[in-house]
């Protein structure tokens, strides 16, 4: 009985470790792996230094170590300076983040000055893994109505799906149920942008005319057809064109201009 209990506890601990490892491994940014590199360096450095000293002794190059005390002194003062600079850097980062947020809000209003807008904060994101709707902190009390266009500093976000007194739900353009009528800026061809489950940063462009000369890097913007979105709002750029054996089935992948994972502030267009 006692042994079973121990096995049970051990199993739970192993499961917790597996869960943590999975979360870490699937969310790790490879650029942040430098920490492990520096940890490896710290471990291997004494061995490396030892070998170098030995090599220098053997080959008679140890005069370099005559100034060791000076170097230690210099190293100490540099470390102090480094700490001071790090502290300044941290303060700078906080100010920079604050500044960026304020700038984002200001840029948004200036960029879309032709429209009457209401600024809003994203307070919640869809809990389902198969949808991408957002919840904003503005509602009918702030003049928000259904089907109003929602934009951000980078481009189109979506439209207001439903409104309560103090909050509103946005159907984001990357949601699988979202469809936006768009224009390819260089060729002015009309196409359809659909959300996908694949990635919360891409859209699938369908109904590309057979004679349309679409190239990677083309900009995509709203066409104004459909009476939801205003014309000319930037959506993103064409990242990839997938050609199939049947020419009518070809489609393109658009990378959205808006980074939805970092979206905090938006504007709701209340009137053109």
């Amino acid at each position, binding site marked *: 009985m006692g042994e079973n209990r121990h096995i049970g506890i051990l199993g739970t601990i192993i499961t917790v470790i597996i*869960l943590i490892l999975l979360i870490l491994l699937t969310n790790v940014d490879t650029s942040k792996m430098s920490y492990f590199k520096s940890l490896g360096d710290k471990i291997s450095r004494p061995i490396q230094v030892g070998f170098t000293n030995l090599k220098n002794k053997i080959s008679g190059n140890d005069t370099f170590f005559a100034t060791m005390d000076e170097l230690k002194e210099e190293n100490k003062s540099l470390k102090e300076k480094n700490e001071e600079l790090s502290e300044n850097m941290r303060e700078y980062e906080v100010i920079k983040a604050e500044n960026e947020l304020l700038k984002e809000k200001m840029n948004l209003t200036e960029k879309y000055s032709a429209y009457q807008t209401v600024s809003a904060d994203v307070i*919640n994101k869809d*809990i*389902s*893994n*198969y949808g991408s709707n957002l919840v904003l902190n503005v509602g009918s009390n702030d003049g928000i109505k259904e089907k109003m266009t929602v934009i951000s500093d980078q481009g189109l976000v979506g439209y207001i799906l439903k409104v309560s007194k103090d909050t509103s*739900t946005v159907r984001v353009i990357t949601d699988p*149920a979202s469809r936006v009528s768009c224009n390819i800026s260089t060729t002015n061809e009309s196409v359809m942008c659909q959300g996908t489950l694949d990635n919360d940063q891409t859209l699938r462009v369908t109904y590309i005319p057979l004679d349309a000369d679409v190239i990677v890097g083309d900009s995509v913007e709203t066409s104004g057809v459909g009476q939801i979105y205003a014309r000319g709002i930037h959506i993103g750029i064409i990242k990839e064109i997938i050609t199939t054996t049947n020419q009518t089935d070809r489609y393109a992948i658009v990378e959205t201009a808006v980074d939805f994972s970092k979206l905090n502030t938006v504007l709701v267009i209340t009137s053109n």
Partner: protein
Amino acid sequence: MKKYKNRRKEKLNIPALIVISIILFLVFMILYFLQTNIFPIFPISGVTPNLFVIFILVIGLFGNNFLAILFGIISGMFIDLTYSDIVGITPAMLCLIGFVATWFDSLWSKDEKISIIIMVILSTFIFEFGSYFIKSLILDFQIEIGPFFRILIWEEIYNILLTIIFFGVIKKLGYMMERKLKRSNMYSVEL
């Protein structure tokens, strides 16, 4: 199957039912907070678990049909009213999970970790596939089988790991609820 039929004739303890409903509502609020604020910070490959499926499954297994339907509707409506444009799919699917849970109870033992894991796998699949399929029909969007199963597999893994970790707690609380509900009372009614 016999067990399932007997279960339907069980008498309900009304005062206990009210107390349990209040406790379950508090549990639901905690789960809602975890689902909306905590788990999005710790996704596995961008995917979060579905705590509501496990919640309704446990109510169906240890409680009864009435509680499973009640909380299936409450939690489903709450989710749909906040995030979705079609109100009704989530409560309907969660109610189905409640019914399926009572059926599972008649088939497998709820004392075994492995059987609970299998129930979680099947319930998550039924809920997610059903919701996605019905939504795709109503909103008329293309079903993406590959990406759907990629997300589903990660969601299943997350749900399984959480079930293993909290198996002891689930079982303890579940049996506590079951004992409370089955205690005879003069104010009982037949379901």
